């Protein structure tokens, strides 16, 4: 069942068309990666879902309720992390959470749990203006949990963070999914999106140009896994594979035979090499990554 549905969304800033007939849907309980180059319209779409921007045309439904007609109450079901996390600088971590709890009509007894869960307990009496970027992001994520919303909209949640915090944020997002939350995530870090998202949608020039699982998109784009073989004699093996029609881009890299072929031809290749009397020590397979998928999509190959 779709928990977020966007239909025919248009938004212009003067003569600039930020969104052009955007359609997408996010299923309940999934992590949906929203990808696109800078200026593609990701943040505009997110802000419209949050009613921070008014759409020119189009409908957005969250949990089946029309966002533009429902008024602010719909936001009880949504936890939002903006691209630039900004909380009240002159207030402490604790006071910020208390204020936000009050606005959402949520009891304050959830705060100790949030402080623990997001590892910000030690900074609870620290003013937000003195927090590091990592701690601020933890606090930003913590506030999304106020009121236990079903839908989480995270705009670039790992942007500008060091690798350790990025890993932590990633784990946290996965744990949110395990709790049954739906996560709508916009990101530039493709490897992370690939790792945690069930499906991705790629937006370019205000339009959704592809939407599926990374695996399905790879298949649609005919992306082949990269195969690295430690084989002896390597020159003979290279000569042989060059004659095979189902093998692409064969070469030798760092004493390994590197080539590309579809998944179903992998076993056939190994048989062929063994039949030719080659001695195979090791085989490594690297599936196509989201970056490759993204580049191909942006090049218009889908």
């Amino acid at each position: 069942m779709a928990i977020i549905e966007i239909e025919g969304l248009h938004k212009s800033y003067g003569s600039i068309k930020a969104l052009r007939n955007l359609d997408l849907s996010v299923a309940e309980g999934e992590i949906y990666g929203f990808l696109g180059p800078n200026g593609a319209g990701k943040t505009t779409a997110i802000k419209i879902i949050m009613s921070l921007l008014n759409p020119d045309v189009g409908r957005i439904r969250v949990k089946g309720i029309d966002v533009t007609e429902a008024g602010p109450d719909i936001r009880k079901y949504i936890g939002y992390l903006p691209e630039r996390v900004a909380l009240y600088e002159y207030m402490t971590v604790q006071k910020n959470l208390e204020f936000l709890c009050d606005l959402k009509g949520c009891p304050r007894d959830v705060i100790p749990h949030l402080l623990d869960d997001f590892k910000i307990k030690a900074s609870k009496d620290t003013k937000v203006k003195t927090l590091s970027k990592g701690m601020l992001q933890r606090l930003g994520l913590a506030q999304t949990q106020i009121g236990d919303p079903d839908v989480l909209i995270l705009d670039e949640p790992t942007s500008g963070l060091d690798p350790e915090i990025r890993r932590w944020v990633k784990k946290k997002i996965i744990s949110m999914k395990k709790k049954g939350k739906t996560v709508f995530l916009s990101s530039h870090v493709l490897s992370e999106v690939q790792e945690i998202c069930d499906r991705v949608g790629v937006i370019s020039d205000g339009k959704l140009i592809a939407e599926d699982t990374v695996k399905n998109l790879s298949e649609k784009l005919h992306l082949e896994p990269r195969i690295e073989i430690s084989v002896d004699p390597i020159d003979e093996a290279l000569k042989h594979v060059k004659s095979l029609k189902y093998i692409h881009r064969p070469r030798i890299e760092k004493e390994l035979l590197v080539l590309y072929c579809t998944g179903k031809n992998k076993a056939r290749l190994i048989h062929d090499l063994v039949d030719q009397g080659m001695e195979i020590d090791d085989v490594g397979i690297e599936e196509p990554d989201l970056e490759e998928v993204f580049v191909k999509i942006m090049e218009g190959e889908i």
Partner: protein
Amino acid sequence: MRKLNNFKLLYSKDMWKRIFRISFKEFTQNLKNPWILTIAVIFLVLSVTVSYYGTAAETSAEWMDMEHTIRYLAGYVEYMVPLIALILGYGSIVREREKDTLELLLSYPMDRGEVLSGKFLGLWMVIITCVVAGLGLGGVIISHNISEVAWREYYLFILATILLGGVYLSISMMLSVFFQDSSSALAGSIFTLFLFSFIWLFSMYAIAEMTFGWSELELGRPPKWYFAVQFFNPMIIWYTLLALNIPAVREWAMEFAGEEPEFHPSYYDTWIMIFVLIIWIAIPLLLSEYKFNKSDL
């Protein structure tokens, strides 16, 4: 459908809780501002010194009656109260927009009108605290040193000043919504102060000279429309409210502007002046809400 929702919201307990929560935050945050305490102390010191030394130039220093104290105090209050209201209000929305806290605030389940109302109430409470603490305490001190205390006039002076603060706060919040950066909002606020305090008066003198003649104004006999036009300046409304109720202020107004009460139209009435000041609070707030609801973040 939307209208029905808004109507229902008027009765929503949650809505009022959120408004009061925002106003409490604004109040506590701004009360910590050292300028607010300073201005409250200035009001206190001014009221006491004006009352005691106000007549020093004419006779020896002695305590003045309440009415004359109000007359002299009004000359300071007319600049100071609008100034603190404009300082408090000009950044209320635009600064939050610049710092991105507005985006987070509006991602919570609340209407934009609730944010505006909450901020207005909180900031107005700051002005009320400042005026009541400063002028109120001053009044208490003065009352212990004079025989006949005109409390009614003094209360009216405080009430009118609170309303004047509300008007300027409402205008500065409107500027904060309409402008996209805080420096423009500040410039707009300063212009507002100049507009109602100086530009208006000079413009009125110029219009008087060009139309019915300066001499008629000096004699306190301007045409009826001239009185009606004054409703477009909240500062004049405030002064008129004081002049209608406090003889010492009326005498001063007659000396300064040649206003003769017998030429005042019948609608120059205390309750109408109070009502007009309230309208002056409401209209900028309604315009702010309209613009705020239409604007993108």
